[in-house]
């Protein structure tokens, strides 16, 4: 038994030596599982045709903030594809694994696709939820993950803030009050977007689920005929960015591969896959092809909050507005 497993091990090393399949680790956030599963196959085929080299791509998924933390703590990611640029900034700041100007390295702020936040309600919309103002009504239960750990939850929070701030005419106290009443209607704070999906769709908790647009469509696919998507009057343009973790890639000798991998995200083929998985493609042709899935929404951008670094420290750091609204 023991000898045979040793032999297998030795053999596999030998084979690895001959075959030299390049390996790439993509550390991503929660709802991208299905998209990257298909994209990786397409890229592997493309790479094989172009260079003759086989490539094996490993994926890791979890709450975006948590994933950033794992990379800082030593998870050997070659590329990161996270939910918001703030999380990649932290990797650049705390671990120096990539340069500060990483976001300028690829087109469109290094975000090959965009997404937004929509509402998911029960079939027939029994509570008549139409817009953010309905979420603070008594008796409405709202499901959203914890913004401290989840990237999607931070977009949710900021989208709600954008609405509240407009409604209050920019009055800070009134805005906070709105957000406070919204979170008082939240019965469960999961640590990641996927956890919240389970809570809402599988456990049947809550009337409204604040969700990534692609995750909302995924629920419709997985639990057909049980939910509906509601488009609020205003939402936020989420630009999930991608970057090569340069120091790690250098160490693994995968720089060229990692670069090509992320570059491939911008090709028409990959843009089409993104559209298919309900990410809004940057490519005009792909966007046109899947346009029936992407209704026009009035979107604010992170620039309204002064960029991610500012948004993070104002809202989500210790003592930020999120901590404040929970204080009694």
């Amino acid at each position: 038994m023991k000898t045979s497993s040793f032999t297998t091990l030795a053999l596999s090393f030998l084979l690895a030596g001959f075959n030299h399949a390049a390996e790439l680790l993509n550390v991503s956030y929660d709802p991208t599982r299905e998209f990257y599963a298909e994209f990786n196959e397409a890229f592997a085929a493309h790479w094989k045709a172009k260079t003759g080299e086989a490539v094996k791509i490993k994926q890791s998924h979890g709450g975006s903030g948590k994933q950033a933390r794992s990379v800082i703590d030593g998870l050997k990611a070659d590329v990161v594809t996270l939910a918001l640029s703030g999380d990649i900034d932290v990797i650049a700041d705390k671990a120096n694994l990539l340069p500060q100007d990483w976001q300028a390295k690829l087109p469109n702020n290094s975000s090959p696709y965009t997404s937004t936040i929509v509402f998911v309600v029960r079939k027939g919309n029994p509570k008549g939820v139409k817009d953010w103002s309905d979420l603070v009504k008594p008796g409405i239960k709202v499901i959203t993950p914890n913004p401290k750990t989840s990237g999607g939850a931070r977009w949710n929070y900021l989208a709600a803030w954008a609405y509240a701030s407009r409604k209050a005419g920019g009055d800070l106290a009134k805005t906070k009050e709105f957000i406070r009443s919204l979170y008082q209607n939240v019965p469960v704070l999961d640590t990641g977007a996927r956890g919240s999906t389970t809570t809402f769709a599988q456990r049947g908790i809550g009337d409204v689920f604040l969700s990534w647009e692609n995750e909302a469509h995924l629920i419709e696919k997985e639990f057909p005929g049980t939910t509906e998507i509601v488009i609020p009057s205003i939402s936020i343009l989420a630009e999930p960015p991608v970057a090569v973790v340069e120091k790690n890639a250098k160490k693994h000798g995968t720089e060229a591969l990692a670069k090509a991998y992320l570059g491939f995200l911008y090709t028409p083929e990959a843009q089409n896959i993104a559209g298919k998985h309900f990410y809004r493609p940057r490519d005009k042709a792909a966007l046109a092809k899947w346009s029936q899935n992407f209704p026009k929404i009035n979107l604010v951008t992170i620039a309204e909050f002064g960029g991610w670094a500012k948004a993070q420290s104002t809202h989500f750091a210790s003592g930020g507005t999120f901590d404040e609204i929970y204080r009694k």
Partner: protein
Amino acid sequence: MSKRRVIPGFGLSLGFTVIYLSLLILIPLAALFLKAAGVGWRGWLELLTNERVLAAAKLTFGASACAAALSTVTGLLVTWVLVRYRFPGRRLMDAMIDLPFALPTAVAGITLTAIYAPNGWIGAYLDRIGIKAAYSPLGIFLALTFIGFPFVVRTMQPVLEDFTRDTEEAAATLGAGRWTTFRRVVLPALMPALITGFTLAFARAIGEYGSVIFISGNLPYKTEILPLLIVSKLEEFNVPAAAVIASGMLIISFALLFCINLLQRWLNWQPR
């Protein structure tokens, strides 16, 4: 040290023990306290008197104590049945007790949530009579009872096996009724094991994270446990704050365990 011991090599084995305990327990704990010391006394005071931390502490220690108490009572009953009676399926039941030990806690948490959620098998009935099980402190209590239960049974079992029926019969011949026999003869003999079982279940529950985060709603001030608060601090890259809360938790746990040990000793010295 000239006295001959049964097991030779006292020096060697003590050396091993000291090194092993240092590597395994003392050094990591020292690192934790060192990290926590970085914030200074004021930082400690501020963090540990923070309302949210206090609410989480109350919930963690309270739910753990309640869960351990329930496990102690039910554990005594179950052990009694397993030890004193012979019936078909007894061995299977005996083996089942260990399941919570072996099951990954996350699996336990997800399973319990599925069952006790408002659309779950049991949760649906509870929901109808207005009891919220999952996503409430009650859910946390359930999860902690689940993971703590085997500790009580496994500490009670050998003691109860040694405590044969003769003693009870002797008490009966001396004119003691059932209740008196239980209260004056059985219970005092089992008390040390019961307390140990309670302590183990309690200590295990305080540190439990994996199962609880699934079944509790993780809401600040309401269903947030201390270990989750520590993890959130880590997610904010606030390692010193996490270390302070962890150290505070350790100190309180240690003090509680110390008191329980004292009680144990005092009980052992009591004339029966």
